[in-house]
């Protein structure tokens, strides 16, 4: 019971901090002090108190988009184990539902973008759905590989399965999986080198351009949803990349939180040292990630 409460608290409260850490890291690389770590929380609170502007073109779909997206990601957050602890809800085959919840989220984000009738947002929606379509097979190949290793279809068993011993035994395929999943993590969360959340030119954006017309609480919901998505996909990555356990339940929670923060720093570093890829290169990198995870699967089958 305590674990369930801690799981929910971490899932609900930690995400904005990750954004804060990323921004701070980037600021440090640029030689600036940067916004405080808790700035995203202030932003969210502020947005919840701001008025909204609605385009006359939009319908109820525009308002429903961010809400359904957040609901889907929240349910996904209940399915994914954080660190060494099993998820609050877990059943055979939950991995399929997990992947499809992101599909639902994407569908609603994209139609909410198209609801404005803006060509920028149409462009962003087209890019988002196309790139995600290429990341989905990667995720599934990675999950099948882990399912075969752990002989389970349950996310909680499957993601808590890797241990240092397994890393030593199947290091190559684990490494390939980690690389592939890191690419998926960056692509799905619209990070450099796939997308630049801070750019000022709508033509080059993917996710940010889809939400141009959202304002007030709706925009807060979108920001929060994006941060939560970072936590959920980051948790998958950390469970595989950092298979350590302290033996103490609270210790494991602490390890997870610290690992999440380190991962945010890592993302911040990637964002600082890399440039955004040209749009035509992105599919190549994503297909490359699929092939990497397929290699990992081959090595496990061998």
């Amino acid at each position, binding site marked *: 019971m305590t674990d369930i409460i801690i799981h929910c608290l971490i899932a609900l409260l930690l995400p904005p901090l990750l954004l804060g850490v990323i921004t701070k890291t980037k600021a440090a690389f640029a030689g600036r002090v940067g916004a405080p770590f808790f700035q995203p929380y202030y932003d969210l609170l502020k947005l919840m108190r701001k008025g909204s502007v609605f*385009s006359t073109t939009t319908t109820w779909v525009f308002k429903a988009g961010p809400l359904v997206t957040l609901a889907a990601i929240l349910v996904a957050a209940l399915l994914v184990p954080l660190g060494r602890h099993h998820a609050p809800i877990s059943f055979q085959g939950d991995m399929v*539902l997990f992947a499809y919840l992101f*599909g639902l989220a994407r569908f609603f984000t994209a139609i909410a973008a198209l609801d404005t009738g803006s060509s920028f947002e149409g462009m962003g929606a087209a890019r988002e759905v196309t790139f995600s*379509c290429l990341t*989905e097979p990667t995720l*599934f190949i990675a999950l099948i590989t882990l399912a075969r290793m752990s*002989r389970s279809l349950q996310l909680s068993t499957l993601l808590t399965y890797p241990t240092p011993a397994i890393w030593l035994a199947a290091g190559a395929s684990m490494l390939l999986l980690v690389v592939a999943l890191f690419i998926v993590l960056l692509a799905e969360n619209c990070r450099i080198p796939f997308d630049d959340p801070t750019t000022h030119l709508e033509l080059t954006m993917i996710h940010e351009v889809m939400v141009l*017309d959202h304002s*007030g609480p709706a925009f807060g919901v979108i920001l929060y949803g994006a941060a939560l998505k970072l936590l959920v996909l980051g948790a998958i990555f950390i469970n595989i990349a950092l298979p350590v356990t302290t033996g103490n339940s609270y210790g494991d929670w602490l390890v997870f939180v610290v690992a999440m923060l380190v991962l945010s720093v890592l993302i911040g570093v990637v964002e600082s040292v890399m440039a955004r890829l040209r749009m035509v290169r992105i599919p190549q990198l994503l297909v490359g990630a699929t092939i990497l995870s397929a290699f990992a699967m081959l090595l496990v089958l061998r």
Partner: protein
Amino acid sequence: MALVSEPMACLLFAAVLLALSGLPGLFLQRPVAAQWIAALVAVFASVLGAYAVIQLLGGTAGAVYQLDWPLPFGPAEFSVDHLSTLFLIPLFLVTGCVAIYSLSYWPAKEKNTAAKLTFFVGLFAAAMVVVLLARNGVLFLMAWEVMAVSAYFLLTTEQQDAQVQRSGTVYLVATHTGTMALFVLFSLLRSTSGSFLFPLPHALSAAFPAATIMMVAALIGFGGKAGLMPLHFWLPGAHANAPSHVSAMMSGLMLKMGVYGILRTISFFTEIPVWLGWLLLVLGAWSAVNGIALAASQRDLKRLLACSSIENIGIIFIGIGLALVGMQTASPILVTCGLFGAFIHIINHGLFKSLLFLGSGVLIHGTGSREIDRMGGLAKRMPATSLFFLIGSLAICGLPPLNGFVGELFLYVGAINDGIHAPLPLAALVAPVLALVGGLAVITFVKLYGIVFLGSPRTADAAHSHEAGGLMIGPMLVLAAGCLATGMAPLLLVKLAAPAVSWYAGIEGDLVSRTGQQVPFMPLTVMNSLLVVLALALAAGYLLRLSKLPRSTGPTWGCAYLAPTPRMQYTGSSFSEMVVNLFGALVAPLRRRPSLATFFPAVGTTFCYAATELVLDRVLTPIFSWIGLGFSYIRRLQHGQLHIYVLYIFATLFVLMIWAH
């Protein structure tokens, strides 16, 4: 009352009623009344049929009826088993909905083709019922031909249109090529079993050399009807050019008759050869990926839906292939998951594809166009249709909490289980393929829904469109409610498909609870409810918050551009351009660009984008035109001079006489 207690009698009576439902329209002088009579009779027949189906699902055994007809093919036998029942479920539901819908969509008051259309719709539905009940090869072929030919007359309703004529001809050639293969199948069946009556399940040995030919013939004949690649080429044109409620029946029901035929043929044999399962799996995967990639490239609303039917048929065949591979490798979970996935998807596709085609009918009715890029902003003018269309789109993408997810879940679980336990888990590759297909489906249906219903109207027709009447909304409401209910409570779908799965795989005992331990359809109800409750709670919170805060409205932000027009919106073609380029090898739309010598193109130059169909446009049409060229020489024999024709007959008889001696 004796009739009502016997499901088989109900089914046959329903078939007769359906076949006769359009007859008054052909003779009565009052077309409107006749159409109402036909619709009411069809609805009554559907209710009767549905009642029989419920009885059959409840475990009542259907009787066997034998008709001694004066034809030398053995008795005409009618019988019903769980496999037939499965296909009857969507059949009666969709037929009833279509009958109501057609009253408003193709009203006899305005369209003089209504009487003919109504007659053939009834005949078409009745023929499909008989196809499912027939247990004699010749009877089956007769029903099959009535079905195929009435579909031809239905799709050529607007026969003055050249495009309709062409797709009608392509359809007729394709369906009869398939029937030719079926003649081979049933002739061989007769020579192996000694009778045109269908053999008992698993009665024939697959080791028999003719068995391979029979399976290939079934694949060609039935696979062509189902729209399995590469025999799918007739499908987009036929579905696009038929009236929308007919497309709903063709896509939701007629394609499934091909699936039924293959399943029925396979059930004759004791053991299934290894290659068949893998072949079906590969063809299914190809159809799924290629079908949805084709759909993404379409500009025509109904062609898009038709191509997505190819995808869904592919998913069904992936399930059947998984099951057959599972039978080979003695993996019971693969068998149950594959069959459940396929059978549930058969019901699901009947629901959501019919819903989407009926919705497309409303769009065509309201805007007068089938072109996606000429619509836009229809959600405001058609609130009910847009909601139902959204439900259908989510369902067809296989997204929770709608019903499409349930079938795909079974396939994923089967595939991943294979990935865990099989020594060489080739079937596990189905999972990433399905993920890719799911991603492409999201692209396609976000494009369809977003461009058609959202944004602002791109043409005056779209701006002045109107919502359909209650007679068109009602059937869509029924289908959408079906999608939602079965999505929220997947147990319903599992229970509908379970008898057919047990029958087909020969499983005894409580299949549902045993499958429930492997496939999470029970927790899915909880998760779906959680999702819906969370979304509603968030919506309530958001609206409450919104009511306390200032709000204003204005135009969409357009980079401060002063004179935006609806034409500046993103179009469907541009939306799918990126993915179409990625799948260029499979899709290859035709693009004609003006060559640019200066900064601006010359006046009058145009850009042309047309989705093409690889098999039909690049392979079959050239071959057929060469053959036509060859036949133009033979055409000289046919010149209209009667006395020479008589000479031909004489010469033929003479030659035959000499040959016989």
